[in-house]
């Protein structure tokens, strides 16, 4: 009984000790790495602007991935990391720009265009529906002669 307790303690100690060894390089932690990838996939790399920080091999992207890893290892949450990035590089780094006064046109511009287009279409169609026959070019009688008889 006593020896098994010692064995248990020893194995626990070993487990903790080995765990401490594994935790040192943050990249070796798959959970943290997955979180890092998820966050950096939302961020635009400033060097090659059509890539995310997760995808890019640019030096800066590598440094920023390291930075995110360190912040996660320190226990920072996602919001804090996003804040860290926008503090330095602005909203430009966000692939999902925040909704605020300066980005209203960005968010609602396309819908606005659709509404304007539909409104213009409605106006034109109603005007045509109300227009008298005299407003249209007269039908060319030649087009309506019996062609199937000839």
């Amino acid at each position: 009984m006593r020896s098994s307790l010692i064995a248990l303690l020893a194995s626990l100690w070993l487990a903790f000790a080995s765990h401490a060894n594994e935790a040192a390089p943050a990249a070796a932690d798959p959970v943290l790495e997955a979180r890092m990838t998820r966050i950096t996939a939302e961020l635009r790399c400033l060097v090659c602007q059509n890539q995310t920080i997760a995808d890019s091999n640019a030096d800066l992207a590598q440094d920023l991935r390291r930075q995110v890893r360190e912040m996660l290892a320190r226990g920072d949450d996602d919001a804090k990391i996003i804040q860290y990035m926008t503090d330095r590089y602005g909203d430009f780094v966000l692939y999902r720009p925040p909704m605020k006064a300066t980005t209203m046109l960005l968010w609602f511009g396309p819908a606005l265009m659709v509404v304007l287009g539909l409104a213009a279409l409605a106006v034109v169609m109603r005007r045509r529906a109300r227009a008298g026959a005299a407003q249209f070019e007269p039908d060319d009688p030649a087009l309506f002669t019996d062609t199937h008889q000839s």
Partner: protein
Amino acid sequence: MSKSLRYILPLLAFLVLAGFLARGLNLDPREVPSPLIGKPAPGFALTRLDDAAQTIKREDLLGKVWVLNVWASWCVACREEHPMLVEFAKRKLVPLYGLNYKDKRPEGLGWLQQFGNPYNASLFDEDGRVGIDFGVYGVPETFVIDKQGVIRLKHIGPLTPDVIRERIEPILKQLNA
């Protein structure tokens, strides 16, 4: 709708479109507005490039207007910019500090020896962390920092005589007034 309007309207639409496209052609998508303008410069404490035993901190530079130029020996555009900086430094308008970004000490020093050293001192940012705090993403970059340690101007890319004359000099004059 009057007849003349029917012809003028498409022309107007075309002109508006052409206007937007022309503006788009002249915008540089690499020139990302920095959120740091008007904010206090990030804190730093870095060793001098030429003396690993001496540290320069943000607080050491408070009380004067100064210019921070981010450079590296591996940066091709910095080489293009460098003669301009040497000229600029000769005029002694403002203390000019370098941020030697992600470089190696011997290479950075060799570069200054070869092309001339316009800097009062260069801060040695080996791992690029101070660069990240300054939001650096394309070397060279240039910052103007006021007496209170607030970033007043950021220029991305090599300085040109035009940029120095039209952007840097006016703001220096204004800040030193």
